């Protein structure tokens, strides 16, 4: 079946209305960088590259509105020219998944893609001001708006953020943008175990020095410091005084490190890859359990609140065995079947919402989004 490639919101709505009437399953492909392998084989792909373009950008109001298919790279370049940025640093999944395509802003919102600055600036959802979308009946709907403070009605935008297209196909998103850091420096503390790294992260994140990244990989704990020249200098001095000297990465080297950490390049390839949310103080224990039971390789981000694990032994059961006891949340990103969510009131509410937004069950059917 040929892919749908609408160039206007109205065209997309018309196509979804037809699919709704015919009960044709649709696979929302966005920019095509994620491999959504879980849907039925007869699902029709919906590419959104044709719905592209920045609709509004007001640097003095920290506001950007863009069509969902706009490449993230285009937005980042536009913002950089004004000294601004998407503070939530959306991950580019191509390296980890071995896919091609161009990451889109709609895809970032649909997956709530949030990079290392999560510890300081929040997730993608925290920067989402409003959306336009097409629901499973083919209706064009809107929620939120373009202003930063808005409590008018139920916030359907944040509900769609992370729902991976199962509640509607995003056509336009409004985002809060922030000033980009003028200086970004990384302190690299080597020869640290996960436990030592997490202890460092917890202590550093308790300071007022606005740590903008806290990650661990291959025995090295990294702290990212950002701000104006004066802020960076002050924060660097204070952190070194408290936590000791460390190797320092600046400029391009620092930027490249955090881009690689964000995209989990160190676990590029094939085989099971999981992202696991835990309390930072549980991270070292979970990492040790996974390594001992399955020989998995592990890295940490978000000060220990996000654990990446790669390895052939990482079945859903093995991961759940390590993560379940501490109330963590595991998602199979590559090469593994996700565990079925527990049937409880929460999942019943989610099923109820999916039935309302998509009564015919045509939007990414079979995709587990709990």
């Amino acid at each position, binding site marked *: 079946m040929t892919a749908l490639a609408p160039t206007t919101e109205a065209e997309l709505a018309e196509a979804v209305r037809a699919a709704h009437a015919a009960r044709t399953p649709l696979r929302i492909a966005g920019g095509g960088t994620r491999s959504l392998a879980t849907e039925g084989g007869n699902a029709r792909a919906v590419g959104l590259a044709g719905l592209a373009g920045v609709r509004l950008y007001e640097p003095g109001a920290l506001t950007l509105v863009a069509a969902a298919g706009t490449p993230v790279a285009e937005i980042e370049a536009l913002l950089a020219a004004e000294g601004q940025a998407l503070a939530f640093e959306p991950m580019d999944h191509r390296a980890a998944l071995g896919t091609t395509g161009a990451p889109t802003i709609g895809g970032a919102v649909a997956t709530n893609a949030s990079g290392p600055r999560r510890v300081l600036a929040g997730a993608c959802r925290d920067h989402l001001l409003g959306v336009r979308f097409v629901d499973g009946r083919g209706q064009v709907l809107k929620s939120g708006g*373009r202003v*930063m403070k808005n409590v*008018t009605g139920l*916030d359907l935008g944040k509900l769609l953020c992370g729902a991976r297209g199962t509640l509607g196909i995003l056509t336009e998103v409004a985002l809060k943008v922030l000033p980009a850091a003028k200086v970004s420096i990384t302190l690299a503390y080597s020869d640290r175990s996960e436990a030592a790294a997490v202890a460092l992260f917890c202590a550093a994140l308790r300071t007022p020095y606005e740590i903008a990244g806290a990650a661990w990989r291959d025995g090295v704990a990294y702290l990212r410091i950002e701000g104006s020249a004066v802020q960076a200098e002050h924060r660097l001095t204070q952190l070194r005084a408290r936590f000791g000297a460390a190797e320092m990465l600046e400029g391009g080297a620092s930027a490249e490190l955090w881009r690689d950490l964000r995209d989990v390049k160190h676990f590029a390839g094939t085989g099971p890859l999981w992202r696991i949310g835990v309390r930072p103080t549980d991270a070292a224990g979970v990492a040790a359990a996974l390594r001992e039971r399955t020989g998995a390789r592990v890295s940490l981000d978000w000060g220990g609140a996000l654990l990446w694990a790669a390895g052939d032994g990482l079945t859903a059961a093995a991961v759940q065995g390590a993560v379940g006891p501490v109330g963590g949340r595991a998602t199979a990103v590559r090469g593994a079947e996700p565990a079925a969510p527990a049937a409880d009131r929460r999942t019943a509410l989610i099923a109820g919402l999916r039935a309302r937004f998509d009564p015919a069950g045509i939007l990414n059917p079979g995709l587990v989004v709990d």
Partner: protein
Amino acid sequence: MSTIAMPAPDAALLARKATIVRALTEALPGGTVISDPAETRVYECDALTAYRCPPLAVVLPRSTEEVAAALRVCHAHGVPVVPRGAGTSLAGGALPTADSVIIGVARMNAVLEADFDNRFVRVETGATNLSVTGAIADDGFFYAPDPSSQLACTIAGNIAMNSGGAHCLRYGVTANNLLGVRLVTIDGEIVELGGPLLEGPGIDLLAVLCGSEGQLGIVTEATLRIIPAPEGARPALIGFDSAEVAGECVAGIIRSGVLPVAIEYMDRTCLRVVEAYAHAGYPDCEALLIVEVEGSEPEIADELATVEAIARALDPVEFRLSTSAAESALIWKGRKSAFGAMGQINDYMCLDGTVPVSALPYTLRRIGEFSAEHGLGVANVFHAGDGNMHPLILFDANAPGDLERAEAFGADILRLCVEVGGCLTGEHGVGIEKRDLMGEQFGAADLEMQMQVKDVFDPGWLLNPAKVFPLATSAARREAAR
């Protein structure tokens, strides 16, 4: 006389009051249920005091399980439920109907857990906003959302209304600082949503719950993100002779890369009243900005130097940097007493629309024109950095017809906010106040989808009746539920 309609109470429920009260009393410990009309009258309104109606009964539980028990009784008897925190809503969000039972969480105010390594606190939602920061301040942390009513308002109400405050330009609103909740559904089931993890779920029920104004359930516990307190903070005061230039200054500061924690704005009407009341030494000018930045001393000096350069280039009537804690307190004193000072000289209606920052000067000019058309004064005091306006419409509550004129004036302002790309409410919520204006901002299909979300959580439409959705739009669902 007032203009916002409420649905007629269900006579059958009123007639069954004794049965309903007995069922509640049997399900709950002594001292939990209030049904004497002399006592329920205390709960007849929130901070939108022009609208009053005592409820059928009031339940003040001490635990989540008691909230669940009360909800099970109400659900079984088909009684509408009005959730209540501290009753500080300016939008009538906690206004009862005569056939409703109020379930108030004010007795549940414990701080249950403070975890500084994982940076969260868990509280019962009857805790006041300020008490959360109070419980963690000695450990160097604070809870960021800071609505003006923070001494009295509860976390439950903050979650229901997705409350903001003066510092949200930098730290976000309640939704950005809420990690998890314990929710009791209308049929009395207890559900955990979210928690201390930063990794969110796919479909984020917490996101739609926050700001849902009690339409989806009652939240009894909350897990909140806490932030290390900054090393210091200092404001600058900048006066301009035109709203346009003040607006230019705000945009200039934000574009420079400085992100102040607060940019507050007061117009001349407000300034004169505030100055007479607080003697803060404010200049008499068209537009006053208070810009506050945070950090260490060198950081503050550096950022305020940038702010000063931007302001000076725009020829301000006054630019004053605070040089001491006493001066900072004085600069803030006027702003913080603005609502109280206005209240001493006049009755006022406080609006809450948000506009794009770039539309602030035009919006202020149009508000001035509306003021002349309606023959009522208006004072403007608001959060300029995020465009969240608070026009205070001045009227005389004892003058026949004045409230209606004020409400018509307010509706004109809110329509204007939507017209220029903003919204009806930035932080106070829709409640009953803006309910019937929702059609200005949303299409029929948009509202229908929002109501379908409520259908999923509250199929019988018992929770917080006659709020948020236009009365006519929700009529069929409310009738069907009877």
